[in-house]
């Protein structure tokens, strides 16, 4: 089916107007490769990499074409005969194999980054112009990285957080990998917010990276390996939900059923696991006992940028907005094209800086038009990208970029101090 309904939804088609830069075009290219009409040459690989993987084409498609799955297969096939240039190979290896899957190395990364940021080394690096050696996209990113930490959520609050009041259910927190290095505070607040709403929260310490970056980059075998570890880590039958606070991770977890399809040992478990994955906003709104969120400083305007994977993968866009609307004293303003990718898309802003930059510029025109004091998101990648956007094309003094959870946490009144609960379990 080649009706083209997906074309207007696609950010790269919108930027270029070129058929090969559209979902319909990319699917045709994939099919041509599968049919042997076309070689999976470098141009083909480049075109596949040009795709943000935002999957805005999926909800737009009346025929229910699963573009995301096609893309993963295509990238996997490219990976099979890719000869990456040496440095790229090194970086990929470093990240995909040597860092992301390993808790201890992530912590090390967090500590080094933190040391770099706090020790004055950052000032030295910036001062000497050593950062100029890095590509501009990386340099920009370096500036907006939040304070990293070697201490993850478990180090801070332990592995079990009791519910406030009568427990509604026992849920597990998926803490993520990068999320827990750069945003471990947000993880802590997620747990606190869930506890406040009546959930007992467990944080299995043997969980690993979700594998989204691997799967999207065509490293399907590695993604499956990670999935197996996570399926084992969350096997506990008493857990009703696996809660995610990062759209990208959540969508990946929700696709374990598809990823492990055909795996003798894990297929069934994966389907069952996937059905229990839920985004934090959805769970809070759907079955939590919500505290009365209030704005302390009077009225503020708030807007929200969808995480593509949350919206298009998990099909959740209403819950975060409804939560924001519940904050007394805050008024929600919808940004034009909030449903359109911000250009972050995993590591896209580093690998495709030009297209990502164009997309971000358009995004910020809409964000600025809302005149909101808070720009909220539900995914670490989008959060960083929007910070970058505000810095480059906006006014950082007038617009704060925050995770929805952090925003709500700040407004939930007396926060339950959980550090006191200590390390349990």
């Amino acid at each position, binding site marked *: *089916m*080649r009706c*083209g309904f997906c074309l207007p939804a696609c950010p790269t088609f919108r930027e270029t107007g070129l058929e090969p830069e559209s979902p319909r075009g990319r699917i045709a290219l994939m099919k041509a490769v599968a049919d042997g009409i076309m070689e999976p040459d470098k141009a*083909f690989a480049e075109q596949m990499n040009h795709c943000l993987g935002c999957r805005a084409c999926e909800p737009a498609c009346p025929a229910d074409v699963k573009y995301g799955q096609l893309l993963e297969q295509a990238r996997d096939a490219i990976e099979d005969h890719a000869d990456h240039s040496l440095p790229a190979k090194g970086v990929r290896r470093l990240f995909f194999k040597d860092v992301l899957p390993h808790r201890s190395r992530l912590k090390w990364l967090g500590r080094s980054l933190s040391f770099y940021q706090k020790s004055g080394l950052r000032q030295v690096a910036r001062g000497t112009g050593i950062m100029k050696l890095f590509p501009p996209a990386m340099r920009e990113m370096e500036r907006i990285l939040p304070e990293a930490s070697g201490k993850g959520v478990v180090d801070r609050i332990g592995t079990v957080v009791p519910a406030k009041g009568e427990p509604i259910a026992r849920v597990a927190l998926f803490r993520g990998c990068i999320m827990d290095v750069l945003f471990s505070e947000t993880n802590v607040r997620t747990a606190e917010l869930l506890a406040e709403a009546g959930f007992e929260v467990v944080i299995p310490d043997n969980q690993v990276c979700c594998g989204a970056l691997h799967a999207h980059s065509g490293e399907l075998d590695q993604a499956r390996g990670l999935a197996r570890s996570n399926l084992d880590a969350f096997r506990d039958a008493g857990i009703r939900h696996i809660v995610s606070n990062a759209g990208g991770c959540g969508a990946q977890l929700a696709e374990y059923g598809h990823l492990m399809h055909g795996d003798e040992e894990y297929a069934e478990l994966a389907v069952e696991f996937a059905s229990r994955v839920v985004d934090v906003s959805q769970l809070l709104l759907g079955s939590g006992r919500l505290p009365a969120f209030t704005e302390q400083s009077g009225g503020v305007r708030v807007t929200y940028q969808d995480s593509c994977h949350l919206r298009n993968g998990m099909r959740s866009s209403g819950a975060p907005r409804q939560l924001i609307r519940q904050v007394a004293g805050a008024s929600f303003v919808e940004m034009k094209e909030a449903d359109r990718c911000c250009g972050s898309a995993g590591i896209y802003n580093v690998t495709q800086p030009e297209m990502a930059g164009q997309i971000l510029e358009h995004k910020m025109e809409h964000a600025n038009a809302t005149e909101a004091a808070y720009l909220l998101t539900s995914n670490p990648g989008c959060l960083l990208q929007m910070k970058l956007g505000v810095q480059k094309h906006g006014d950082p003094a007038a617009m704060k970029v925050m995770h929805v959870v952090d925003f709500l946490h700040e407004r939930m009144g007396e926060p339950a101090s959980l550090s006191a609960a200590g390390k349990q379990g």
Partner: protein
Amino acid sequence: MLDPAMARRLRDIVGEKHFKDDPEAKVAHSYDGTPMLQSLPDGVVYPDSTAQVSEIMKVLAEYRVPVVSRGSGSNLCGGTVPVQGGIVMVMHRMNRLLEVDMDNLTATVQPGMITAAFTEHIESLGLFYPPDPSSMKISTIGGNISECSGGLRGLKYGTTKDYVLGLEAVLANGEILRTGGKLMKDVAGYDLTKLLVGSEGTLAIITEATLKLVPPPAGKKTMLAMYKDLYGAARTVSRIIENKIIPATLEILDNPTIRVVDDFARLGLPRDMEAILLIEQDGDPEAVERDMEAIRLICEAEKADRVEVAQTREEAEKLVAARRSAFTALARLRPTTILEDATVPRSRIADMVLRIREIADKYGVSIATFGHAGDGNLHPTATTDARDAEEVHRVEQAFAEIFEAAIELGGTITGEHGVGVVKAPFLEWKVGASGIAVMKGIKDAFDPHHLLNPGKMFAGETRKRVVIDRG
């Protein structure tokens, strides 16, 4: 393979970036919205102005290389599949709105502009451009003109041809032709404007169009009538027209269509109904009220199970948007979806619906039906599997018989999707041998070397009326 010297000249005209002959560009322009058709071009060119189009055509004429002009490739008749190779000329860069003349109520626009972008802009100025093909979010004005597209409002407002006042077009030899203008009346010679509308890129390349605008209707109401009986729904359509009411929109969806559309749009449509009618009336609010009430009574007399009026503008728009997705949504059912476009006089719509059912049963194929019932334009759509050659063969037999039934009832083989490659073998059924001869004469006058969209409209051979395999 293209002559390298010719490719060089094309690059010189449009710039290095806007001529492509790599595998990626070829594959991405080898298809359109039509299922089961694909053919690679030798190159793709993206002109930016009439002058460039003219220069390109001079080069192509010199080398006798065929050219397919292309909007968004959303047509459903194989109209932009380069069946004889050559060059695909993509009009997307020529997408400017050149002028809105508020005194004459006209707009002058380049062909690559997306239809929905055009109508949105026009509506923001307090004016109205009625043609609204379901593909309007992707289709281009140039594509609409070349296919003479109709839409949900065709019944009351007519189709694209009723809104094209003047054209600028480039002929096969590169010369520039101007027809019509901002005139409401013009009888100077043959009507070349109307001739180019619906000519499917076979006579000239349209590079600019002057379109008629009208004042927008003051009010609008949307209604859903639901039926346990498909025939009752179809009869309602004829009865509404008989009662001299012309709604703005009068669409029919049968049960399989209702289900798939609801799977996509999640509107909570009545999945147990055999058919629904989507009815809109616009105009003076009082007249709208009156018409809607009269329509409701007719629906009830024809045993509608339920009749509901959309409460908000949003709700109404969702219903209309859902209807526009019907064709693609049907692809959820089986791997291959083949949509046809038979049209009958409005009084025969119920007969036609029944005939389609009978024919589908006779050949043991599943055919869902929806369409612009109010203007007699139905889209019987087969859900099948291209890998099952035997079943596809039966589908083709069924469609040939459906076209035959349409002509028997005083109808035609296509109401809006055009002839292209798909209907070419059937064209003579409708226009007769003398019709074909005149059309071929016109083609020769415009395009003596048959460079413009060759292989379209005219088939090598006409299908015999006794059904055989579609070549």
